[in-house]
């Protein structure tokens, strides 16, 4: 419940800041890091934020799957330990239960760190979009001369 409240507060605050900024591209950065920067022609920065967020989210998903698996195996070992009717099975499941508990603890820590990293990238990206990524002119220009014309493009980082 605390987490839902925290996320709701963050969303409301971010929404208010975005409304106040009046910059359309900030909306896109709020939705996914880097998107707004790419729309503002800051391709390098946009790709960096987007890549970091994708890596964080994929890592969260993988860690979550591994965590769920460890918790399932822990629950199974715990049930077997509590219902054991032979000391050999009890000892075996007790050891397995502790091993899976340690695995679950470790993966829970990784997952928390990765959620923090993803949130950090998102927050950094929003701040960057609000204060440091002013919209630039289109990356293409046309220069016409007597017997030739030049199409020029530029990249912002």
């Amino acid at each position: 419940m605390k987490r839902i409240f925290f996320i709701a507060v963050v969303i409301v605050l971010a929404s208010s800041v975005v409304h106040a900024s009046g910059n359309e591209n900030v909306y896109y950065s709020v939705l996914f890091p880097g998107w707004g920067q790419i729309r503002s022609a800051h391709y390098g920065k946009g790709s960096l934020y987007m890549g970091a967020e994708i890596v964080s989210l994929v890592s969260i998903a993988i860690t979550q799957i591994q965590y769920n698996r460890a918790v399932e195996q822990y629950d199974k070992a715990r049930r077997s330990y509590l219902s054991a009717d032979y000391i050999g099975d009890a000892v075996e499941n007790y050891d397995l239960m502790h091993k899976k508990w340690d695995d679950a603890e470790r993966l829970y820590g990784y997952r928390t760190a990765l959620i923090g990293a993803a949130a950090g990238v998102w927050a950094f990206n929003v701040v960057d979009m609000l204060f440091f990524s002013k919209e630039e002119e289109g990356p293409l220009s046309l220069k016409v001369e007597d017997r030739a014309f030049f199409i020029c493009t530029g990249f912002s980082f």
Partner: protein
Amino acid sequence: MVFHVEIRGIYMRRIELIGVIFALLILAACSKKHEGLPTGFKYDPLPAPENLVVTGGSEIANISWSFPAEKMSRVKEFRVYQYIESYNMLQLIGTTTDTTFTDSLLIGNLLYCYKVSAVDTTDFEGWRTNETCAFVLGSHSVK
């Protein structure tokens, strides 16, 4: 970007709505922390019987063992297992409240291995002994 949705009087732009759904999905995916690790080892098992001896007879095997006298009050029964080493298989062949057991109707000229354990009054089985083996003679074996 002009699409609006009204949720209980709050107008939300489509992009914000997607953001909220996205955040809630991440939240839902991150399940609650595991809990409920039992503290300490809750069992107090009986020790394994000692001095297990198996004597092969004519199609029978006599099995005997000893058990600490001070712990006999906790013993409900002893379980006798036949152990087949090549399959690492354990088969319960009988129970007894005594410290001897006779396995009969065996096929002669084979090696038989046994393990024994004590079961306490809560039906919890203690440690099993290591296997002890004996050669069982056939009914017409030359002695």
